[in-house]
């Protein structure tokens, strides 16, 4: 006895939608800084604004006043 279309329907779209969401997240996660392109990583040192590899051997924190 074959499966009904209603039972199969929830399965086929999961993989392509997951891949699409992953691609969108990657595209939205790139950005700049200092006028150059750079990788934006998840916040390190409690800051939301981090550029560079999480595996970099050095970390430089700048405390700044825009004035």
């Amino acid at each position, binding site marked *: 006895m074959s499966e009904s279309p209603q039972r199969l329907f929830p399965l086929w779209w999961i993989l392509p939608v997951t891949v699409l969401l992953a691609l969108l997240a990657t595209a*939205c996660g790139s*950005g*700049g*800084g*200092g*006028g*150059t*392109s*750079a990788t934006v*990583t998840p916040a*390190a*040192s*409690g*800051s*939301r*604004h*981090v*550029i*560079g*590899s*999480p*595996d*970099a*051997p*050095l*970390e*430089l*924190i*700048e*405390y*700044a*006043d*825009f*004035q």
Partner: protein
Amino acid sequence: MFARSVAPQMIEEYVDTGKLRYVFKYFPFLGDESYYAAEAAECAGDQGKFWEYHDLLSLRWQGEGVGTFLPDKLKGYAGELALDTQAFGACLDSRRHEALVLADKRDGAQAGVSRTPTLILNGQQISSPRDFEELKAIIEEALNGGG
């Protein structure tokens, strides 16, 4: 000014090559415009344009307390970057990011920060470099195990 004269080369030579991770934190202390600018940068960040706005502020900087970073000006800069100016204006007027900016400042004060720019390299406060070459020497020393 670090953001304009040193950071671009530092990012190109060390961040983009995987040797250095750069973390930006707020330490507003020079006056009201400092707080407005920091909160405005967060509002730009809400629209995914923090770094672009950060770079634009460094270009528009003219000095301390000269009106360059008053709310109306900051809203104009958002327009230059084609942000949603209505949402940006509402964000800035609401001061919804004030607590986040103050939290950064509190962290800085606890780390011994009292002026800007203050740079902390792998947990050690370093003297503010006059130019990129001076910073480069400090970074190279740290990469070679001297820092």
